[in-house]
């Protein structure tokens, strides 16, 4: 009888075993992370006109990592050499979405009121003023009276104006030479101009050509590289737009977590030199956001356009109405900084 008692489990022992099992099983279960739901609905086709250079990296990374496919999107990427060309493709109906600089969007906003901003794909300070030291330029004040190359009707022209204003100068204090970016590189290298205000990668090429003879200043404000689409496409494809934003956000996370691999991929994808990617990569921030500052930047550029008679309009557009927040709101609301 005594032996039988020692063999059988008492209630207290059962309780201890029960607690132990709950603890052992509970810890790993509690530690498990919820897996994101995989998309299983119909696949939708999207054509993206994407800048075929560093600022368009998120689109190419998303494609390379299969994020579009995972989110039920059959994305065709059409590569263009500039954000303007991308916007033109969108406006011409050759693409559903484009990647373009803020200035390109604002330039088109008066003529194409159906344009909509989905979010950014990069923000950066990539516009620089680079001058030759041998032209006696060592301070910003030395720019007065110098020949400076800048591209007319470009964001660079606007930002150069901001740059001059912030440094107590104006367009009239310098001799502006209208040149396309590659021409600026050539002209400054030859000494035909004393300085140039342009953007990456031309700034890199100029510095490479001038070497120690170069002196530079970053220009003015942040620049926003945005995802543009059209109102009618959004209205017909709100779910696809949401999944597109989700894919690009996944690419953003991938770049954050695998910076070196992403950098290597971009270098190979665009056939960049190692020195160039090392120079330019840290200046970019590949983020999908909708910031209040971006909204103010749009208005600022619009005012500049009106002031410089680049548009017939006299009133600033309500850019709040050009921003489509629902897609980003659905996937990552905390990425929206626009006051509402």
């Amino acid at each position: 009888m005594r032996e039988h008692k020692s063999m059988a489990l008492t209630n207290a022992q059962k309780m201890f075993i029960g607690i132990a099992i709950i603890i052992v099983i509970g810890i790993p279960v509690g530690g498990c992370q919820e897996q994101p739901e995989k998309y299983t609905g119909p696949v939708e086709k999207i054509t993206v006109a994407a800048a075929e250079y560093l600022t368009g990296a998120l689109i190419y990374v998303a494609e390379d990592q299969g994020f579009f496919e995972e989110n039920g999107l059959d994305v065709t990427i059409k590569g263009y050499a500039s954000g303007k060309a991308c916007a033109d493709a969108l406006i011409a109906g050759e693409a559903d979405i484009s990647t373009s600089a803020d200035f390109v969007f604002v330039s088109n906003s008066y003529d194409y009121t159906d344009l909509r901003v989905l979010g950014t794909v990069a923000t950066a300070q990539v516009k620089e003023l680079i001058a030759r030291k041998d032209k006696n330029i060592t301070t910003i004040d030395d720019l007065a009276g110098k020949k400076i190359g800048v591209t007319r009707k470009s964001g660079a022209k606007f930002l150069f104006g901001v740059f001059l204003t912030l440094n107590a100068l104006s367009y009239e204090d310098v001799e502006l030479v209208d040149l396309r970016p590659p021409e600026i590189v050539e002209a400054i290298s030859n000494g035909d101009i004393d300085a140039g205000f342009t953007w990456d990668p031309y700034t890199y090429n100029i510095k490479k050509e001038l070497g120690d003879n170069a002196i530079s200043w970053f220009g003015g404000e942040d620049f926003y590289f945005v995802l543009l689409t059209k109102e009618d496409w959004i209205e017909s494809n709100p779910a696809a737009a949401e999944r597109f934003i989700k894919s690009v956000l996944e690419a953003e996370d991938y770049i954050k977590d695998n910076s070196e691999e992403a950098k290597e991929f971009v270098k190979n994808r665009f056939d960049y030199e190692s020195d160039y990617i090392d120079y330019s990569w840290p200046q970019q921030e590949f983020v999908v956001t909708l910031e209040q500052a971006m909204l103010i930047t749009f208005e600022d550029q619009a005012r500049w356009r009106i002031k410089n008679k680049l548009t017939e309009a006299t009133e600033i557009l309500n850019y709040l109405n050009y921003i489509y927040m629902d897609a980003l709101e659905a996937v990552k609301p905390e990425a929206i900084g626009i006051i509402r």
Partner: protein
Amino acid sequence: MNIKNKLYVSAGVSIILVVILFSLVLVTSGRIAEENKKHELVDTVRWGVSELDIVTYDYLLHREKRMEQQWNSRYNSLGEILEKATEEEELISIRAGYAALGDLFSQVTANNEKIQKLTQEGASQEKIDTAIGLEERLVAQLLITSHSVITDASRLAEESLIEVTEAQRITANLTLILVIMLAITVTTSSLFVARSISKPLDELTKGTEIIGKGDLEHKVEVKSKDELGQLAAAFNNMTESLKQTTASRDELEEEVTVRKQVEEEVKKSVEQLKQANIQLQEMDSLKSVFLASMSHELRTPLNSIIGFTGVILMGMAGEVNEEQRKQLTVVKNSASHLLSLINDILDISKIEADKVVLSLEEFSLDSVVREVVESVSPMASGKGLELVTELPEGTTLFSDRRRIKQVLMNLVSNAVKFTDRGSVRITARVSGDENLEFRVIDTGVGIRKEDMYKLFQPFQQVDISLTKKYEGTGLGLYLTKKLVDILGRDISAKSEYGKGSEFTFIVPLRYEEEK
């Protein structure tokens, strides 16, 4: 208390402390969550008003529809938050400020429209200046109210943050105290239980070592009433049993030693006996040889004595008077007796010296028995005894005829000698297919039971009183047995004192050398 219960108590106390800790954490985390919620609310309000402030400045700078739209949107969303909030007291000033902000911004936008309208309509400067003056007041009020609300919200946020921090600090302290208590309890109870286990275990280990070295007098001193106390008691009992077993074993070992010694001595004695036996056999053999030689040497002169005494008695050497005849007859009988004695000794000596040579032949049973009967007939007739023979007809034997006859003669002549009246019966029958069984039955004096053992011993006569009456060498039956041992299978006797005896011996019908 036994160990199991001690462990249960220890675990129980720990569980109670953990439950208290858990409950405390639940209560305080509830409070922290509540404070956090409040903090989040006022922080959201502060942030919302700050954003309104930003848009206000934006509006005052550019006065565009986008700013109005944003301002109203943000104001409404902030209103929804405040509406849902339940913290009435803390939010009184904020709610008041919020209401004032909405009112003031509406007035500013309305006044702005008025100024634009007056400007467009070309109204008097005085009217426009009045409107601008109002705007300046309204804007100042708007900014003051806005900053006041931000300050209030910041203060509230700061206070709620302090509350949260305080709650966290209290929770952390209480948790720390409880964890320390838990650690102390677990450590103390573990040490207590461990000590109550390890000390008796040490005692048991020491005891095991001491007892292992052979000190069975050692006792394990464990006084506790738990399982280890029981184990120690059982251990002591076991030691006691072991001690007793060891004592028995020692006795046994001692006995074994003694037995071994005895065995050794027995072995020695057996060896000595063997040696003595060999010596005896050698001496016996020498004796037989000696006796044979002596008998031979004695028989020759005895035969001369008997022969010549006979010749004298026959009167061939001259007339013999009665007295001479009488004395010569004594001489002749004595010599014959001596010769008979010597012949027996000679036969025995040969047998004992293993020098008997058998003369095997085929012969008739009947002839042998008849010769014996004829030899003893005169003596039997003289005593008036009846001699009866019962033999199977036509039986032949293959054996030593002379020795068979000698055996039979010894037995029959003994029977006649010790029987004074009645009869002597000689019977023979075939036993099985191989043997022949002889019986010599008399109605003589018989033998006492206590004398039966002497029957086949040398130089023994069963009854001393009869020795003088019945003359004999005392070697007859001894020799007979020896001969049956060689020729036959067995000889036995049974007798009833005063009534007679019966001797039986068995010989094979055909003697076989191998035997």
